[in-house]
């Protein structure tokens, strides 16, 4: 898979409950079967490559290994029909991807474990990644459980924001306002007395009123971009707010 490409144009903004087709909805609707759905899935996977990579790396692997594994994972996702596990009605792409990663890792462990044990031999029934098995068998430590779900979700949020930032930065640069972007970025966190608009006004050579206008527009656009991206990954645009709220919770909890 190539490096993450620039994203295509976002769909029309969702307002007032109008249903808009997003990539994920397309994937879910077609259950990943149609070429259109596959293309959409491919785009989503490219966009969220980083969280998966970091998640895999977090378990203690080095960069190179993690990268290889990530490639392998995404290849699997795209090649096989992974949608037996996904509930099209409810799932968000993030949950889907996380589940797929965990599944992938457990398969990996099985493979490695089998190799260590001399491969080919039939192992005793052990409690592996099967969540339904609660029998008190031999407990193998599930190392993947050391990395919590929330870590993945955090990285997901970061990727989301990175993307929005990148897009916003491109737009501003294209409008010749790269300096504005750089100077006004800090106010994306909100209004705070610790930041001096006077300094920013001076550095850009504009009035403080213009700073306020610029900040307002930047935040508005950023919000639009973030919401658009989130909308791509939820089955229903009504869930955008819920997804955002969840991500904010994850970030706040650390």
């Amino acid at each position: 898979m190539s490096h993450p490409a620039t994203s295509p144009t976002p769909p029309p903004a969702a307002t007032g409950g109008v249903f808009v087709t997003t990539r994920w909805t397309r994937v879910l609707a077609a259950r990943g079967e149609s070429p259109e759905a596959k293309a959409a899935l491919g785009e989503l996977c490219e966009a969220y490559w980083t969280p998966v990579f970091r998640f895999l790396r977090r378990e203690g692997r080095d960069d190179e290994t993690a990268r290889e594994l990530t490639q392998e994972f995404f290849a699997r996702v795209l090649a096989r029909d992974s949608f037996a596990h996904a509930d099209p009605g409810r799932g968000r792409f993030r949950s889907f991807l996380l589940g797929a990663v965990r599944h992938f890792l457990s398969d990996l462990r099985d493979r490695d474990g089998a190799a260590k044990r001399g491969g080919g031999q039939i192992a005793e029934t052990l409690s592996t990644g099967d969540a339904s098995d609660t029998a008190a068998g031999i407990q193998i430590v599930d190392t993947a459980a050391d990395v919590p779900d929330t870590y993945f979700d955090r990285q997901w949020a970061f990727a989301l924001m990175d993307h929005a930032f990148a897009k916003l930065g491109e737009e501003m640069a294209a409008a010749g306002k790269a300096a504005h972007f750089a100077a006004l970025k800090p106010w994306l966190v909100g209004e705070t007395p610790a930041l001096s608009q006077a300094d920013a006004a001076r550095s850009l050579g504009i009035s403080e009123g213009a700073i306020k206008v610029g900040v307002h527009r930047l935040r508005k656009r950023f919000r639009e971009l973030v919401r658009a991206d989130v909308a791509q990954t939820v089955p229903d645009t009504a869930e955008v707010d819920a997804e955002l709220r969840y991500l904010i919770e994850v970030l706040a909890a650390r």
Partner: protein
Amino acid sequence: MNTISIESICPKCGASIPPDAPHGLCPGCVLSGAATATEAGAKPGGRIAPPPREAVAAAFPQLEIVELLGVGGMGVVYKARQPKLDRFVALKLLPVSHASDPAFAERFQREARFLARLNHPNIVSVYDFGQSNGFCFLLLEYVDGVNLRQAMQAGRFSPAEALAIVPKICGAMQYAHEHGVLHRDIKPENILLDSRGTVKLADFGIAKLSDDSAGARTDVTLTQSGARLGTPHYMAPEQIEKPSEVDHRADIYSLGVVFYELLTGELPLGRFAPPSEKAVLDSRVDAIVMRALAKERELRQQSAGEVKTQVEGLGTRADPAPATASPAPATPMPAWAIRLAPILLAAGGLALLPAVLSRSGSSLVCLWGLSLSLTGLALLTSRPKTRAFALVGDIWGAGFTFAELCVLPLLAKSGSLPGQASGALRGIPGEFLFALALVLQLAGLVLGAWILCRRDVRSAFGIITPKPGDPLPNPWPHRLFWLAIAILVLPIAALIAAVLGPVLQHAGLGAAAGFIPMAASGLLGFCYLRSRPAMANAQPVASWNPWPKRIFWVVIAGIVIPATLLVIALLVPMLSKQMPSPPPPTVVQEKTAEAVPKGEVDGLPQVLPAGTPGAAALKWHFAWVKVEQNRKLAATGLLSTGGPEMLAAQRDLAVAEAEFRGKPADAAAANVTYAKGMLANARRSFASGTGSQSDVNDATLALAQAEEALKNTPAPAPTNRAATANPEASLPTAEVGGLPQVLPAGTPGAAALKWHFAWIKLEDNRKMAAVGTAPPGGMLAAQRDLAVAEAEYRGKPADAAAANVVYAKAMLANARRMYSVGTATESEVNDATLALALAEDALKSISAANSTNPPALPQ
């Protein structure tokens, strides 16, 4: 990539920002910011669904619909473009439900016409209105900016900004009211702010018309039916209770709410605190805001113009006045500086005192004193103009002192007299050095004034308050800060130099304490840099964090510079030699050089050796002078009247007179008197225990010997003064050139004395010339007198005449020079020419008479 653990803190939530956070911003806050709505009133499931864009574009073919600006209770607003006029406009579409009602349409038209009347720079203009394809529309001026609500969300308004905006809104309101139009819905969402800072009042959509000329009051509401007019929080009480009796004062109430919100960020709900308690600002603002928020409309300002006048009357100062009860002092001068101020004032006064008492101090001392006092005053006063004045004076004083104390002494070895250049740089004319000093002083003054003329500097020094439109608000720009440091490092260096005072004294840089005014000005500058009035923005002092490092470098400079000066000062005396003053350049002088006395008698030059005629007279004269000196000393108490020196001087005088008169008996008598006096002294000392018995014995013996000698000399009574040519004149009566004249002309020795006196006068003139205070023609006259006196003494009238000629020639040359420069008249030149001619004639006639026998020259 390893994370370098420099943890930064989010300025909004205070949590630490993880190293992998995007763009280094707190991810939680960024995402929260993205999740919250940026549009006021963009409530989920808003009351109005905007019509599809295609429908709008179709309804207005003459416009290009650019984007949806907002949705409110009164319709939808689009940004559009008029291609024909190539300008942007705002297209406001009213709720479609009303469009079909003809009565509504009529009212709408009437209202729109009234709105179109309003032509004011702070009111959004109406370009067009009407109905088109089922839409009731208003075509309005497009304002490229944000509304006040969005601006408040984007960044907190400083009181200064708020005070700048409110008068403009008042102006718009006043204008509208005068034209019979009420707004009735003044709120931040309806106040637009563009990027140039222009304020525009918009959304007169529910304006009430008081059309008295029609005789009827027409209520037009363009909101959806059933909706209250106005927005609850901003509505005046009477608007809620008695909507039909509302007048323009309801708008003033709404303005008050907006004002309050701008200043404090909160709404004035229930029992609310005055704005100055919630934000750092002048308490006078409170009165204006609280009055506008009065429940009874009679208590409010009665017109928007009145509010405007009140706000503008505050000036641009939104900062706490010095007398407010705010915890931080309004002009926070460091406390230690305030304690130092009276000391400086006192020191300045003391420095001036000697100058005042002796009525002659040097200008430098006066300047010190003045400079010190100025600094003390400036530290004490909180009045900005006084401070500014003191600062300029100080910088000038620093420049002056620096020039006088550092530059000139280095060039001219010591002292501050521009005319005296000695040492290795003797050749440099004094005028140049003086000019250099002046230039330095002037530079100091100009620099100080220039610094203070810069608006940004003055605001940093707290002399003025920056206005919102100022291009360079606080803090002080970087380069200028360093320039000021460079200027002020000299006084700070001087401060350290003053500590090394005694050493500098030794090195000849003399008044090291003169550095103190420079140090004082450095101190002043330092205090100013540290103290700035508390701006309402309350920008953190983080910008001063580099201070410790700068102070360190300043102190280093303060040590290095005086050390260097010290080294140079020590070297210069070693390199320069004391040159003797060159002799006056007249030929006459060289002739008399041999006859000039060589030895001294009791500090007085002796013109003639003993034995030559007139020596006795001179001796008498000298003895008299010495007695006079002793008498003067006795008068100051340094010498006792009956003491040994006094007695000896009187004895010498009596002896000299006796010798002159050829009366040895008198001399002996004088010796007896002296011996008696000495015996009395010895006895007294012995009685008081400070003298010994042998001293008394010696004195007794000396007395006996003196009486012996007296008995042996045949002489008339010592008190019988023989008649001389002029008995009264035997004691000095008159003075010649400040010296007592012992003998009238004609008596033997007078000529010698006259020569002596002339020589003394010439020496005096020479000394005065060296100091620079010689009278202009005095030197020549003194030389001429000396030459004449010598000639008379030697009996050579020709020489006297020759001297006169030389003198006359010189005077003529002077007169001619002065005439060419314009400081003398032609008649003066003529007089000098005549005098020269007379002198030459005299010389000729004497040479003709020709007494050429040289007298016996004394040795």
